[in-house]
């Protein structure tokens, strides 16, 4: 059970941050504190999952292999927009069969191309009911109650990487301060 995933883009400086807590727990027991819940889809995309752990792992790995297959088949990488749509489509098809209980944050970087006027960083908020939205910052889980307000106040399009690190630290501090569940990492 992931409790929080959050992320944001740095529009001016072309970066995306995707963060997640590191504990794997069920009921009152914590299995491990060093679980990695942000998967590298490929060299320029990150997929953070929140919610049910087995669904998260199975689904994100499945997406990762399909993204790799596309690259081998077509000799070129899928862009973030196409990947988000692919993910959403898979979730939508499974929704009325056997839904994946997983919320996702897809962060990606795309190089300048006929589709993109310039290098672009984008973040997509995809929830378990297969809705997808392009956002500047996003959050899944209880953490959103706390972190969204921080983002509302502190996020702006010209964030530098150092400012981004501070922002992440602010979010973590807030959670450790105000969130009932203690998430050490």
């Amino acid at each position, binding site marked *: 059970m992931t409790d929080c995933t959050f992320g944001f883009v740095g529009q001016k400086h072309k970066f995306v941050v995707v963060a997640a807590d590191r504990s794997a727990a069920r009921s009152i027991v914590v299995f491990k504190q060093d679980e990695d819940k942000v998967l590298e889809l490929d060299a320029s995309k990150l997929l953070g999952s929140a919610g049910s752990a087995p669904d998260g792992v199975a689904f994100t*790995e*499945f997406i990762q*292999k*399909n993204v*790799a*297959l596309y690259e*081998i*088949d077509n000799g070129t990488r899928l862009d973030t927009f196409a990947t988000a749509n692919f993910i959403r489509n898979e979730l939508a098809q499974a929704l009325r069969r056997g839904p994946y209980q997983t919320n996702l944050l897809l962060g990606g970087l795309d190089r300048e191309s006929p589709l993109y006027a310039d290098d672009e960083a984008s973040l997509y908020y995809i929830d378990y009911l297969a809705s997808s939205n392009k956002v500047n910052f996003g959050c899944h889980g209880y953490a959103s109650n706390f972190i969204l307000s921080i983002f509302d106040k502190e996020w702006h399009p010209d964030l530098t990487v150092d400012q981004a690190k501070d922002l992440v630290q602010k979010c973590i501090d807030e959670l450790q301060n105000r969130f009932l569940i203690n998430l050490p990492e």
Partner: protein
Amino acid sequence: MAGSYDRALTVFSPDGKLFQIDYAYEAVKKGAATVGVKGSRCIVLGVERKAVAKLQDPRTIRKVVKVDEKITLAFAGLTADARVLVQRARVEAQSYRLTMEDEPSVEVMARYLARLLQRYTQRGGVRPFGVSAMLAGFDAVTAEPKVYQIDPSGTYFSWKANAIGGRNAKTMREFLEKHWTPTLDDDDAVDLCVKTLLEVVDSGAKNMEVVLLKIDPDTKLQTEETLSDDKLDAIIANIEAEANEQPAEAKDMAD
């Protein structure tokens, strides 16, 4: 005798042959020549580039393709069949990565393709693939080069050097048998591959495509290089110059 026993795949002939498979081999022979040579630290794949129509774009014809990050495939035979085979191989490679959390070895891939091809020799209503495939890659642990060939019958073997398809695969194979040694370095392997191709292909870089797969034994880093036309032309010119010198030397020795 061939007349009545060669129609259905699922019928043996009285002398134990499955004619459809034999005919599939014939389809392979009609394909472009493909040569694979193992060097001590590299693999060279060379394919004959058949002349294209004037109005056709030659870049859309790719005969040496990647099946997985570290496995390359060259084929001879029916291109459409090969396309299907390559697609199945690619999906299987990703499927293997998903379930085993590890990359497939060349042998695993070869075994999968062989099993697939065999399945098409034992069902009603289908025909065998008219493709012979050469899989090339390096061992994940020892960095040893590996070349496997899979036939339409579903058999697969590891080869040190082999040639399939083309006007005269037999001639090419005999040439390889005469000249292959276990200690070929990268340049020698490329040389041998090009010389073999020149046995059946017209001279000139535009008539062949040569891909050099190298591995650094320490870092295990693999690189793939498609030799440029200029490089190829230089190699061919070199080979032909050597060939021209030799008759002169023979003459000197005779005198």
